[in-house]
């Protein structure tokens, strides 16, 4: 059991550190350092442009998507090197937010199912941030129940014609490509009639409508498809085998989201360290200390759980369903932390403007973003099901629609 770098790792760290220090957009460092869940904005710059420029610079020097093979725009790095990079990249890593879905989910799916020529064409610009990708899975009828989706794909010659609607699609408004899960056979049980594609988001018939979120921001969208044409060559996996393809995406999703969800603890600790209550510094209050300690051990437990996962990964073990724990724990923790930070502010906790609120409204922004964290990438309940069924081996939920042809499944809860 040790945390020391091997000589090789130390050399890699030194190289990464030197390059970051010479190339990172330092003018944004402070702002990025202070940003937290729900509040990654730059005051005087367009964050998408800054992020793209940083990603491109990394890619040109061979620091983008470190664990991807070189021929697809990566560096062929080990899992440990990827972690070392993240440690050294520090707050600049927050700029990768808009690439998470592309790099974490679409890329790995393309890598597993696209043809060689396509991989060489599409993956390097995805790695370099020049092209942004989105994930078109969820629909009004199919969220947790992904396989309940209704967007149709019908074969016409060498093309497929797509009609239907997606929802909650993050980043669709600035995405160049997307991976799309569709229904190709409604007459068989739901998991057996799905097919996966990738498509150009600028294709005729694709319409993106931003949704205003509960937080007031607009990061996700509705996407409508009207007779959108996708060539058969852009199909990922076999016809009607889309469910299996999507499992690759979803597993990667849990890995990349789970590792990155913030807990809010460092922010809360700093806050309590500086906050004065009526009877003195907050950090000296017994009840505050007790709450803080509880959050502290959850945050450190998650940190060391992911270190254990990385150690396993570096020994060649595959990431398993136990990784669902990260999102499940961090998701509700960040929400509780935000509520507690507001509570400590008393009546003034209600204020949310950057000028009027404590610590520039950091926790108010966190509070308003947190509900989404517990839903995106699988709800808390779905995460618990995964742990119970796939880690602990408990029986699957009873699925009344399992053997029913999709077009015979009822569509309303209350008649």
């Amino acid at each position, binding site marked *: *059991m040790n945390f020391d770098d091997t000589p090789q790792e130390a050399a890699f760290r030194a190289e990464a550190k030197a390059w970051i220090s010479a190339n990172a957009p330092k003018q944004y460092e402070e702002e990025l350092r202070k940003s937290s869940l729900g509040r990654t904005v730059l005051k005087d710059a367009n964050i998408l442009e800054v992020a793209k420029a940083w990603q491109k610079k990394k890619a040109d020097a061979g620091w983008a998507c470190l664990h991807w093979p070189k021929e697809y725009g990566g560096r062929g790095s080990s899992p440990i090197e990827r972690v070392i990079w993240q440690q050294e990249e520090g707050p600049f890593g927050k700029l990768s937010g808009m690439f998470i879905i592309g790099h974490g989910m679409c890329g790995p799916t393309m890598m597993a199912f696209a043809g060689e020529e396509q991989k060489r064409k599409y993956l390097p610009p995805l790695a370099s941030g020049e092209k942004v990708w989105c994930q078109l899975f969820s629909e009004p009828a199919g969220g947790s129940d992904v396989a309940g989706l209704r967007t149709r794909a019908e074969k016409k010659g060498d093309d497929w014609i797509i009609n239907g609607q997606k929802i909650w699609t993050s980043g669709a408004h600035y995405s160049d490509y997307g991976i799309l899960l569709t229904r190709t056979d409604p007459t068989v049980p739901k998991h057996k009639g799905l097919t996966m594609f990738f498509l150009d988001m600028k294709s005729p018939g694709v319409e993106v409508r931003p949704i205003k979120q509960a937080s007031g921001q607009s990061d996700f969208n509705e996407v409508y498809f009207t007779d959108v044409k996708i060539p058969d060559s852009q199909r990922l996996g076999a016809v009607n085998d889309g469910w299996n393809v999507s499992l690759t995406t979803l597993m990667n999703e849990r890995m990349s989201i789970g590792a990155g969800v913030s807990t809010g603890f460092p922010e809360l600790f700093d806050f309590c360290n500086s906050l004065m209550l009526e009877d003195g510094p907050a950090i000296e209050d017994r009840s505050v200390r007790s709450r803080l300690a509880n959050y*502290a*051990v959850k945050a450190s437990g998650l940190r060391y*759980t992911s270190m254990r996962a990385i150690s396993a990964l570096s020994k060649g073990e595959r990431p398993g369903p136990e990784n669902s724990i990260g999102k499940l*724990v961090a998701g509700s923790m960040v929400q509780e932390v935000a509520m507690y930070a507001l509570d400590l502010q008393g009546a003034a906790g209600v204020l949310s403007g950057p000028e009027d609120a404590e610590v520039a409204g950091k926790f108010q922004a966190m509070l308003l973003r947190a509900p989404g964290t517990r839903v995106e990438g699988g709800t808390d309940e779905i995460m618990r099901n995964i742990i119970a069924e796939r880690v602990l081996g408990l029986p699957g939920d*009873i699925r009344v629609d399992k053997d029913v042809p999709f077009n015979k499944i009822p569509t309303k809860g209350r008649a």
Partner: protein
Amino acid sequence: MNFDFSDEQKQMRDEARKFLAEKCPPKAVREVLDGKAPYDKALWRGLAEMGFLGVAIPEEFGGAGAGHLELCVIAEEMGRANAPVPFSSTVYLAAEALLLAGSDAQKQKWLPKIASGEAIGTLALFEGKGNPSPKAIRLQATGGTLNGVKKPVPDGAIADFAVVAACTGSTGRDSDISLFLVDLKAGGVEAKSLTNVDPTRGQAELTFKNARAEPLGAAGDGWSILTQVLDRAAVLLAFEQVGGSDRALEMGRDYALDRIAFGRPIGSFQAVKHILADMYVSATLARSNCYYGAWALSTNASELPEAAAAARISATQAFQHCSKNNIQVHGGMGFTWEFDCHMYYRRANASALTLGSLSYWEDQLIDRMRKKNAA
């Protein structure tokens, strides 16, 4: 970085698990629980023969000289089996205090006896209600003799010797506290067993009447040694708690698969599944915190105080959470004496208090994080 136990350490864990499955089945735990014996003597001898009692004791003092990572591995298995032996008081508290502060002669006298199972040791710290604090120590040391009362003292009624925290001044400051080594069989100490929530680990009241004592470590260093002993024991006990958490989770899972209600195994009901998933989550977070504690303990890292407090809190919470919900998953059966669930529930709640309560460690953790932050 390699954040895992080595293959040799895992092999040792398997060996210990096998040994304990055979020598310490629930039936053996019940002998002690039912009051038929103060502890399992045969198991204690067996542990000595396996070399488990002296795992972290250097060879020159009769131990195996393996180290603290190995001891963590054994501790987890002791917790898993709910072993009814004075392991934690002897190995985590008495032996660690000797290793940290003992003179060569003291180590030569007691450590080989610990390793061979001849001597049971303990730490006499508490004097009634409250948490570790120099102010709470009233037992007086004067001219090599001790006078006062300690309670609860873990395994105090069966121990051969005790490390005793005593007051050598009157201000209640750290520097008023010194540690002493007392041969409990040499006269001057009266031991009385006390009933407690976990009879598989005895608690006692020790009354010192002009008991002869020799200093352990320098006069006035007592509090600083104690803090270190408690930190080290916190990591080790946390591994026991994680072992217990895992076992409670396993019991709940197995029962959920076997028990049928409404025509289905209860483990197929989502409410039950989610209870078990949450048990897994708390046990996993605790295990990860413990691994960090093990690393800090084995390397004597400057992070040890913080890591120990985090491991302690997290493992205490996990064991309480898993053991209480194990009973819930078992329904009425879980509340019978006959089922083993309550043994883990008892142990979880007793372990939660033996080195200072949860709120004490919460306080410690924040103190330590704050100091680190300020540095």
